[in-house]
């Protein structure tokens, strides 16, 4: 049985457990949405500080929404709607058999196309899609984090995939 939900989160233990549960998701959400130039980790931490400051007003079951909304607003305050470009970190596993210059060049081109294509996704698509593909989250989990229906997540992700493939083929 899960413990009854508290109507406030002004307990260090409870706050810490919320932090452990959501900090990573919140950070990734901010990163996929806004990119790295606005320092998602800072905003994530700031949102948690704000959560603590308002701990008496926020019931436990609203903590996640509070965090995501607050962090999103913190970002929007600074965000001047520049185009978000996520950098490819080139951490892909090496195919030791295929290392020839031509292949490397192809890889590089592919990555550039991918970066471009991802930048062209809508914010909503990008967030849901990368949470799914990169973080390996299931539709249900993403739906819970973003407070939207599973169907909507499915649509966003599938739409994103189609758009990406189309863009990559065209380029």
């Amino acid at each position: 049985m899960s413990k009854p939900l508290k109507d406030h989160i002004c307990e260090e233990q409870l706050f810490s457990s919320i932090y452990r549960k959501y900090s990573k998701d919140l950070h990734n959400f901010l990163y996929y949405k806004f990119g790295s130039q606005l320092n998602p980790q800072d905003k994530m931490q700031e949102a948690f500080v704000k959560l603590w400051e308002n701990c008496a007003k926020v019931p436990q079951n609203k903590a996640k929404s509070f965090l995501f909304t607050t962090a999103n607003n913190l970002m929007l305050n600074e965000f001047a709607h520049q185009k978000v470009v996520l950098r490819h970190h080139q951490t892909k596993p090496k195919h030791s058999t295929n290392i020839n210059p031509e292949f490397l060049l192809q890889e590089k081109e592919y990555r550039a196309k991918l970066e471009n294509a991802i930048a062209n996704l809508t914010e909503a698509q990008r967030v849901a899609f990368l949470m799914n593909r990169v973080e390996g989250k299931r539709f249900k989990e993403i739906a819970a984090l973003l407070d939207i229906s599973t169907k909507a997540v499915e649509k966003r992700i599938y739409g994103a995939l189609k758009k990406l493939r189309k863009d990559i083929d065209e380029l």
Partner: protein
Amino acid sequence: MNREDLIQKWLDHNLNPQELEAFKQLEDYNDLIQLDMHLKGFKAKTVHTEDTLETIWSSINSTSKKSNTLLSTLSKIAAVLVICFGLYYYTTTLDTTVHTIASQHETILLPDASEVELNAMSTISFNTSSWNDSRSVTLNGEAFFRVAKGETFDVSTNIGNVTVLGTQFNVKHRGNYFEVTCYEGKVRVKTTTKETILLAGDTFLIIDGKYIATEKENLSAPSWLNNKSIFKSIPYREVVAEFERQYNVSIEFENIDDSQSFTGTFTHNNIETALKSITLPLQLKYSKTDNIIRLKRD
């Protein structure tokens, strides 16, 4: 199961083994896998949960401290403002004091355009901010007043107070010597022993607490304003003291009765002439070294 459903299930990480096989048979399987592989490169930086949690706790603590320091800075600012305001209030309500040194004359304009001529080595103080309520000055030394018409004007000294309406008068207060001469209008003089009203030309003189009757003054302004000191039956020591003030010298004398009366004049412009003026009538000789003058009987 059609292609779209398979891809959807793949996306949702929800393929069962048979479906996976079917998915692998799709013509774009390789494309999808290549795409998926590359997408991993966009992984967000890993957050070290425990480390960042610690920074959050420390920043929470420091922000709560910050509000304390904010309060204390505010109270510091408030304290400084209070001190500044206090100083401002104190200095603006503080008496204005003018002081003259030896051989210096000074003209002072009071807030209501009354004029004060201050003789050498004299101090006058008055309060500008309360001037409208009471025109009063404190004097130590000698000064000539040209008072603008208005409410009563008070001059207080240690020996007595002088109260006037609009008028011109001279007040001289040196040690135990207190002299008031009225040149225009009416002046009331009040000391512990005596109270008189002076009309133009009248002089009120007290030396060592004794009232001394004097002749009518027929000058229109005190002589010192014209750089002269005139004495009529005044003890010699007062004459010498006035001389010292006007020329910034010190006078020593031997075997001379300094209480004898002196009648005469000395100028403030020429020390030789002035010395002769105060010595010849009493048949005294003088010698001068630097700022010290010795008087001797012939």
